[in-house]
Each structure stands twice: as structure tokens, then as C-alpha cells.
């Protein structure tokens, strides 16, 4: 009897995160004046607004993602998923890519869902194809693209082709070259379901856990994007009218650092009237596949070793697929 009570005594003496949180909140309250005074610096104020905006804009989509993830964990058995998907990974990749059309959200929603799919036994290659396809080819994003480019209906087709190709190529590349140990073990471990727990309890616990574990990374991504948004000189845009290759590269980098929601990026691309169409298409293909916010979320979901390989590869493949789709659908490099 002595040992547990001593353990409990130690437990009671240790400072827990709850107390730390309380201290943080009290300190922040006391420092409210200086905090607000910091906003007198215009660049800090702009950064703070952009940061809150990205968080506020992305949270509903992250919530959608964790809810879908929770529903899959509670109600879709691994067996049912295996029955739906083709047996070979090569064939499962395009099916998963097409399934991405059914998740009407932006990239923040697809990260928790694709991780849940992996945990439920879907081959990683197929889950990754879903991860890349879902934010770019769903109807909401395609309609937004059509609205943003009223005079250029071929932009929608080109975007669909480029993004789908990126997703499939990356899926097949992973099937061929990917190593399971690159994905953090915690990402693939299925949460054990205690006997007697209701489906509703599994649903809420999974959603809660996903929200907590990916929310922090969303904030990290939002913070990075806000800082870059303030620091990246706008004169980048001015240099884009001449050289097509340079234009494609700069627009691809811009897609990564701006971290726009895939439902909004078409409007931004449409407003850059000085830039030719092809670099703008690459912007639309790269953005939903890889940006700073997404890399942060992927690091959280699948681990650093995964993200450090997957993100650069996706960046290259997305530039190639976007350019190719542009040349094929839009014709010459206008």
C-alpha cells in the first residue's frame, strides 16, 4: 500500500501542464497592455491580423477533417475499406485519388482523414494520393476556379489534370520508393478500442485527439505563413512578366510561402493579371499539394522524417505536372 500512495504524493507535488497553462494565461492578462502596444508597429499588426485570419479561416476545415476522421474510426471497419479498394496498390492509388473529389474542403481537412485511412489499413500510397488530390479536385475548389477565371474555362480542366496527375504520380512513387519506417510509428498505431466503449465515444475521442494533435501544427503553419506574408517583398511579382521558367519557379515558391486555402487561391491567381496563365496554373497546382501550413500539418501527422522527404518531392512533381497540364490544355505558353 505504501508504494502507490508515495507515487500519488509525487504526482500531487509535480507541477502539471494545467498549472503552467493557468500561469501563462494570467501572465498574458497582466501583459495585455504591452502586447497591444506592440501592435503600434505596422508590420507586427499586419502579421498578427494575417495570423489570426489564417487560423480562423482554416479551423472550420480542420474540424471537418477531424470529424470525418472520427466517423471513419468509429463506423468504417478496416475490412470494409479493404473490400472497397482494389487489392493491388497500383490500382488503389487512382481510386483513392478520385475519392478525393468527395471531400469538399481544403488541405487542412485532408491531413487527418488520410492519416486515419492509413490507420484503418489503407496502403500508404493510396492514402497519400487521397491527401494530395482531395484539396485540389473537389467540386467546391473547381467551381471557385471557374468563378475566378470566367473567361478561361480551360483553367478548370488544366487544374484538375495537373493536381490529379501530381497525386497519382506521388502515390505511385511512394508505392515504388517509399519506406514504411519514414512514417512515424505513432501515426500508424491504431488507437485501441477499450471493450464496451460506444461508437459515439470512439468518435468523440478520435476527433478530440486529432484536433489536439493537428491544431498546434496548424497554428505553427499559420505563424510561418504570416511572417512570410509580411517579409516576402511584393516586388517578386513585378519580375514575372518576362521569363516563363523564372515565372513558374517564382509562382511555385509563392504558392508554398503564402499558404492560401485551396478555395481562395484561384481568386488570388486571377488577380495577378500581369503574370501569364501557365505560371498561375502552376501556382494553383502547387498550393494545395505543398505549402508551409501543409508541411507543418504533415510533420505533425506523419513525423519529420516523412515530411522532409515527401514535401520536396511533391514540390518538384507538382511543378512538372502543372506545367505539363498547362501546355497540354492551355496550349502554347501564353
Amino acid at each position: 500500500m505504501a508504494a502507490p500512495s508515495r507515487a500519488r504524493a509525487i504526482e500531487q507535488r509535480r507541477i502539471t501542464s494545467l498549472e503552467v497553462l493557468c500561469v501563462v494565461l494570467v501572465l498574458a492578462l497582466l501583459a495585455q497592455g504591452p502586447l497591444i502596444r506592440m501592435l503600434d508597429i505596422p508590420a507586427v499588426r499586419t502579421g498578427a491580423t494575417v495570423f489570426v485570419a489564417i487560423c480562423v479561416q482554416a479551423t472550420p476545415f480542420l474540424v471537418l477533417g477531424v470529424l470525418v476522421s472520427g466517423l471513419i474510426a468509429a463506423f468504417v471497419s478496416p475490412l470494409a475499406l479493404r473490400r472497397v479498394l482494389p487489392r493491388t496498390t497500383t490500382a488503389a492509388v487512382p481510386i483513392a485519388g478520385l475519392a478525393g473529389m468527395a471531400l469538399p474542403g481544403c488541405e487542412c481537412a485532408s491531413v487527418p482523414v488520410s492519416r486515419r485511412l492509413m490507420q484503418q489499413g489503407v496502403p500508404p500510397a493510396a492514402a497519400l494520393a487521397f491527401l494530395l488530390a482531395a484539396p485540389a479536385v473537389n467540386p467546391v475548389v473547381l467551381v471557385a476556379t471557374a468563378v475566378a477565371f470566367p473567361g478561361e474555362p480551360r483553367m478548370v480542366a488544366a487544374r484538375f489534370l495537373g493536381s490529379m496527375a501530381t497525386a497519382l504520380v506521388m502515390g505511385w512513387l511512394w508505392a515504388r520508393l517509399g519506406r514504411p519506417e519514414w512514417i512515424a510509428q505513432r501515426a500508424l498505431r491504431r488507437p485501441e478500442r477499450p471493450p464496451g466503449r460506444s461508437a459515439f465515444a470512439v468518435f468523440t475521442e478520435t476527433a478530440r485527439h486529432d484536433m489536439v494533435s493537428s491544431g498546434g501544427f496548424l497554428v505553427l503553419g499559420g505563424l510561418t505563413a504570416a511572417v512570410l506574408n509580411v517579409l516576402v517583398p511584393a516586388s517578386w511579382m513585378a519580375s514575372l512578366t518576362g521569363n516563363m521558367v523564372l515565372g513558374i519557379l517564382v509562382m511555385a515558391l509563392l504558392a508554398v510561402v503564402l499558404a492560401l486555402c485551396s478555395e481562395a487561391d484561384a481568386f488570388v491567381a486571377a488577380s495577378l493579371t500581369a503574370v501569364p496563365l501557365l505560371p498561375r496554373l502552376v501556382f494553383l497546382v502547387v498550393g494545395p499539394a505543398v505549402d508551409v501550413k501543409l508541411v507543418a500539418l504533415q510533420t505533425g501527422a506523419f513525423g519529420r522524417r516523412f515530411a522532409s522527404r515527401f514535401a520536396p518531392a511533391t514540390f518538384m512533381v507538382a511543378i512538372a505536372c502543372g506545367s505539363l497540364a498547362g501546355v497540354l490544355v492551355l496550349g502554347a505558353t501564353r
Partner: protein
Amino acid sequence: MRRETQNVLLVLLGGALCKIAYNGSFLRYVKPSLLPFLICAGVVILSLGLISIGRDVRAGRTVTDHHDHAGRSTWLLVLPVLAIFLVAPPALGADTVSRSARAVAPKQPALALPPLPAGPAPALRMSDFVTRAVWDDADSLHGRQVRLVGFVVHGAQDSTYLGRLVMACCAADVTSVKVRLEGYRGLAVLPQDGWFEVQGQVIPGSAKSNTRFTPTLTVSALHPVPVPTEPYEF
């Protein structure tokens, strides 16, 4: 981080979303049509936190393992909570306009522009005004007084502009429009970022590529206005 702390953070985060949805300050950050999604997200996050607090309380002392190794990243959730509750950053303004050198022409309207509304000085959206000044072949602005609402931006060489930001989805994707103000005393001492309604007449041919498609307005009257509930144009 302990499970209890995570739950408290979720309640705070959900509460923060509900707060900005309720008091309307979400319009500083995102477009109006996001409101229902914002409310849903806030309520869902709030309930996820409350449900698991309730579950833990009911389970009482039988729950032994309170440690949930979600990592240190969860602490970052404190940042948006603090930013919303304590700082509440204002809508973007003059700093963003001066920062964006995107001197591109507004998109050419697909259809011919309708004539200006009747009346002595119709109110126009800033973005419509600039589009008309750049593209309107029928020259609908010629000889007409118009009213514009925006904030003051002081530029290089004592130039004063009226600026406004156009949002697609959230404040990370805004593009700026601005109109140069002239011909009115005291323009140079107007407060940066102060909101004004300006009445005036465009100088024909002032919105060309050499002025970076920024029209010039000869101001005949101006008076301060409160910050609009929708600070952005869409």
C-alpha cells in the same frame, strides 16, 4: 501535455471562435459567408472539450493514465486564443497597401459597364471605381462627382491616397486598390489609416500604366466615417 489541459485549451479555442462570430469581429479576418462554418467549428471544438471533461469527471478516479502524448505542439493553440481574447488584431489597412507593389491593372470587365447610378454624387465601391477609371470606354466617370469610402494611406513624395483592400477568402489573400487624392487642403495631415468618405471627380486619363493604374481624384469634400462593419470589399 495532460488531457485536462488539452480539454481546457479546446474549450478556450472553441470559445474564441464563437466570440468573434458573435461580436462580428470575424469580418476583420475572413469573408462574411464563412460565418455558419465558423459557428459550427466553434461549437464542435467547444463540445469536444466539454464532452471529454464530462467523461473524465464521470469516470472519476478510475482514469489512471491522464497523459496523452500529443507532443509539445499543442501548446501553440494558446497563441490564437490569446490573440483573439487579448489583442484582437484590427483589420488590415495602410501598411498592407504600401507593402503591396502589385501595380497591375484590374481585370477587364467581361461585359460593358452599366452607366453610373443617378444622383448628384453616387457612392461607388473603390474597386469598381478603379475598374471604371482604367477600362470604361464609355467614360462613365467623366464630369461626375462620386463618393468613395476608404482609409488614408500616405505614400512617397507627400502623396496621399485613399486605400481599400479586396478580399477573396481571408485576410491572407487581400489585394489592394488605391486612389490618389488631390486638390484639397490638409490632405497631408490626415491620420494614416483613418477612415473617410471622400467626394470628388476623377482626372480623366490619370489611371494609366505610368501611374500604375492609380486614378487621381480631385477632392471636393471629405469627412471622417466610423470603420465599416465590413472593412473589406469582395
